[in-house]
């Protein structure tokens, strides 16, 4: 279990650089940097952030290093991750 609160991992989200701490989820690291939109919905193109926060609702799905439909609230960030919004 990491006690670190310092941001020492870097990753990209939709091409922009962000930082996060080991053990943080993608959603947590992005929200800590003020991100308020993880994806847009398929039909109405509405912005979505997290909802259940524990992997039940799939509202926060993103593409992680080319793998689609990953839950940003569960998947922990790794150094150099390339994350893009699901469309």
């Amino acid at each position, binding site marked *: *279990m*990491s*006690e670190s*609160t310092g941001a020492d991992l870097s990753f990209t989200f939709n091409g922009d650089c962000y930082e996060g*701490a080991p*053990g*943080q*989820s993608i*959603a*947590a*690291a992005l*929200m*800590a940097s003020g991100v*308020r*939109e993880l994806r847009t*919905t*398929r*039909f*109405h193109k*509405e*912005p*979505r*952030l*997290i*909802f*259940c*926060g*524990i*992997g*039940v*609702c*799939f*509202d926060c*799905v993103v593409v992680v290093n080319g793998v689609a*439909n990953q839950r940003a*609230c*569960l998947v*922990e960030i790794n150094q150099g991750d390339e994350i893009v919004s699901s469309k």
Partner: protein
Amino acid sequence: MIAVIGAGPAGLAAAMTVAQNNEQVVVIDSAPRPGGQYWRHLRKVEGYKSGRSDKYFRALEESKKIIYIRGAQIWSAVQSENAITLNYLAAGIESSITVAKVILATGAHDRALPFTGWERPGVMTPGAAQALLKGHNVIAGQKILITGTGPFLLPVAVGLAAAGAQVAGIIEAHSPLRWLRSPVALLLNPQKSIELIYYIRKIYQYKLKVSFNRAVIAYDGRAASIATVDTELRIKETVSKIDCDVIAAGWGFTPDVTLGGILGCQQVVDRDGTVIFAVDRDQRSSATNIWIAGEATGIGGADLALVEGRIAALSALGLAIPARLRLARYRLQKFATALQVSYPVGNGWQGWIALESKICRCEEVSLGEICASVSELSANDARTSKLFTRAGMGMCQGRICSRNVSEIIAKQTQCEVTEQERIGYSNRPISAPISLGALANGIK
């Protein structure tokens, strides 16, 4: 060997009891860290008795009798003559384990009710706000409004305030006077009153504003609209607006019954409409060699889950169950019943929602579309409506909306939701999405 599914309070108590009796136990949990949804501390978070999880976490790390498989999502299970095989996916690899006995402690997630604007970024469950704080050290927003019903709102609000968050208020739908209906439950559980006093003191310490008999009925992205509501949650009048960028709204909990359902464990509908497992006085399910403990046998909180976990483990080991454990469970079950009486979730929320608001978040199905499936396409039950609208057929497998969709259809068709329908929408043939590729990799 005994397998415990879930590493929340019930699962940890069960595993530790098995290990203390010198038997081997394997704990399989979907999260990367133990504790379930309630005990998920990355660091110390302010809250009543927040240190009591420590001994369980230590046992998980140190006991030679406990094998702990983390980050493993069980997606199916098969029972044969004398064994139960659990198929799970961990780090993208499909594996399986075969055991003699299983203790299910699969927990619950927040129940969400829709309101106008609940699709907007910033609206989340209290569980989400708490997971961000406890599990990831992140405060969900600049100004957080906590709303819904039930005592769980208090630790969420106090934890956030203690961490430095600006809490815009606690909007509780019911009156605390409803507790007067359950004097016996209160007398049997003096420790719960002490816990309540702890939170009341914290509410004063952090100057949190608490309102009763009110609910958030709409959010425009900047401010929440607050209305007074009756006990059925019907709007009386809109009274104010509160600026916030996060609304954490929770309406009790929905147990995860999928895995037990796949294994054929008998389910029943609790008095508040929640689908739970039927267990005997030893926490034994209707299926051979399967015990169930914690929220999946009735929402009751961590204290009850701990007791049930211990009883389930003792029974699975074939050991005698001390009378004091049974008494503790009786007391806490009385308290759980009092919670249902004090914080009912009526159907008045259906009057909060604009026709264009989404009910199914995954498939973006609006209230208007669901109503039209009844009025124009003659759907006369939820199943038919779902086929027309796709409500409840998205990635969450209906976990968030299916109960709400059924309640809406019932109102539109002037029927009651049947017990069969409730059990139907609570179960799914596979307990977690799995790709065919991952399956094929496991077979290789």
